[in-house]
């Protein structure tokens, strides 16, 4: 057998299992879901069909599109909040901590929460923000409040807070990496050109860390967009998010075609965001030479 042929066969052998896996558990389910989104609901079953009624309902019934818009808003807020918290943290770790051991330790401290169950971490905020929670007890004890408030929990604020807390490591990681990759002598070169620390940051450090920012923000946005645990645990009736609605369509509401259509819409939005950020990152990387 010729070497080239043998190589091709070997490549195929290596690629086949993951390819098979992806086909079976990604593309086939997506295809099924895509097909379902055109079905018609006729209680208690779903009838195969090709019609756009489900999609039309999403766009016309405020019950659905308000949730979609709210999810968009919450995802943006979480992405923004985690960026504002993660960037200074990553910057501090990379540029202000000079001992490599301390830096590695602090970085681990940021990552460690990821090892704890996601459900548990979301639940923690319930005990912090609840009317009998840690924060309320503290505020009453200090006399700031005369009696516990229930304004802290079961609203959009608590959802944004919880999700920001949960997704921050995903934002810190790429920003940390991109900051670490910036050669220190670029900062020195900027100072050498007579430019002070603030403008050096704005002109050199920040632009060069954009790939990390994009990656982190995309993580936070997409993970929030598909989340249903946090709104279920700490969100109230006015903090319902799209994933919860989808879940109920496949569950109690028993409307699989509508659920499928919602899923497709979510999928399209998330894919659009990812490809957009990917394109931005590509142009950025080109600039880096």
């Amino acid at each position, binding site marked *: 057998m010729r070497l080239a042929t043998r190589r091709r066969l070997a490549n195929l052998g290596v690629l086949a299992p993951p390819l098979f896996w992806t086909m079976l558990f990604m593309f086939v389910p997506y295809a099924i879901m895509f097909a379902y989104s055109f079905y018609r609901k006729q209680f208690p079953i779903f009838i195969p069909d090709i019609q756009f009624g489900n999609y039309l309902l999403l766009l016309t019934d405020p019950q659905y599109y308000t949730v979609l818009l709210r999810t968009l808003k919450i995802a943006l807020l979480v992405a923004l909040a985690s960026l504002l918290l993660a960037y200074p943290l990553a910057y501090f770790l990379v540029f202000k901590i000079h001992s490599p051991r301390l830096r590695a330790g602090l970085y681990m401290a940021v990552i460690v929460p990821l090892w704890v169950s996601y459900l548990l971490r979301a639940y923690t905020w319930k005990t912090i923000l609840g009317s009998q929670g840690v924060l309320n007890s503290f505020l009453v004890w200090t006399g700031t409040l005369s009696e516990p408030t229930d304004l802290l929990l079961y609203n959009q604020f608590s959802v944004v807070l919880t999700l920001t807390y949960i997704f921050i490591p995903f934002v810190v990681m790429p920003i940390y990496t991109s900051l670490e990759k910036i*050669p220190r*002598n*670029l900062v*020195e*070169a*900027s*100072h*050498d*050109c*007579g*430019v*002070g620390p603030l*403008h050096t940051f704005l*002109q*050199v450090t920040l*632009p*060069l860390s954009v790939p990390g920012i994009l990656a982190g923000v995309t993580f936070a946005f997409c993970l929030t967009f598909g989340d249903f645990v946090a709104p279920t645990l700490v969100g109230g009736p006015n903090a319902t998010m799209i994933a919860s609605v989808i879940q109920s369509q496949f569950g109690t509401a028993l409307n699989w075609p509508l659920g499928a259509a919602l899923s497709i819409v979510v999928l399209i939005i998330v894919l659009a965001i990812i490809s957009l950020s990917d394109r931005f990152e590509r142009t*950025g990387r080109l*600039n*880096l*030479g």
Partner: protein
Amino acid sequence: MTKIIELRNLSKTFAGDVRAVDGVSLDIEAGEFVTLLGPSGCGKTTMLRLIAGFETPDSGEIILNGRDVTDDPPYRRPVNTVFQDYALFPHMTVAQNVGYGLRLAGMPRTEIRKRVGDALRMVDLLAKEDSLPGQLSGGQRQRVALARAIIRQPKVLLLDEPLSALDVKLREAMQVELKHLHQKLGITFLLVTHDQKEALVMSDRVVVLERGRIAQCGTPGDLYDRPASPYVADFIGTSNLISATVSAASGGQVEAQVGPHRLRAAAGSLRVVAGDKVLLSIRPERVLMLANGAPVPAECNFLSGTVREYLFHGNTMRVELDIGQPSAFLVDLQLQAALSGTDLAKPGSAVRVAIEPVNVTVFPADPTA
């Protein structure tokens, strides 16, 4: 002449008790081309970084242009640096890189354009002004770094091994170019290098550093012909360093015994008496190989040995002689004719070499050796 840089008793110790710079005092005149020369770890780059402001000294003072800048951050010092790996901003074009400092200083756009154009023309890179650093060759990046460093018209240009990343041909061309640029700009250049040839070619004055201290400071000719220590003699060019015992010393003349041979040398300022251990330094190219049976020229020392090996250098032939010392005695022969036309003694055969006393330098024997 005015002093542009004054270093007073400068010291810097890094973590792990490494004394990078150890009580250095040095004055540099305006317009001079000075080179800090030494092997890696001698503190030359640290000295440059102290002057640029990227490091702060543990003690001592740095005075630039009559002003104490010891505690000033780098962006308030009238110096600019050409970094070893250029440190160009990868997200800015060549023109943006060069004009960066001026733009952030708030200079009008038209004025920046003009000065960037001038600077790029000076380094012959105007055609590349819209390229990104990633699209340039090493030599071109070097020029951009140079243009960026001179555009603010600094009092002192600091160059941190700027040519070390270039290949030999380009490096030699850039050495000449830098020298011309220095003459054209008239500002002070302070270069750091480990390449002694580069230092000799380019500088008005060379400062040889040894473990954070100044070993010797002088013109290239001074250092080569009158090295202050065996360290300098060995680091600048090549030297045969031979241990010897003084057999007689009188009237500025020293006679030293090396094996069966007696070598005469000028003592210079060195005070020695008979019986002292000394170190003789002899440049390989100052040695004359004697033809078989030829008489030793008058007043010359001579050594005899056997040829160990020939090393062909193109323009010269290096001969390694065994003269009964631990290390080989090197002789450089100028090849005035093609190699095939030169009559060389076969390896293993006995030869004699002659050395004029003026070409033998005497150092006190290193007590640690």
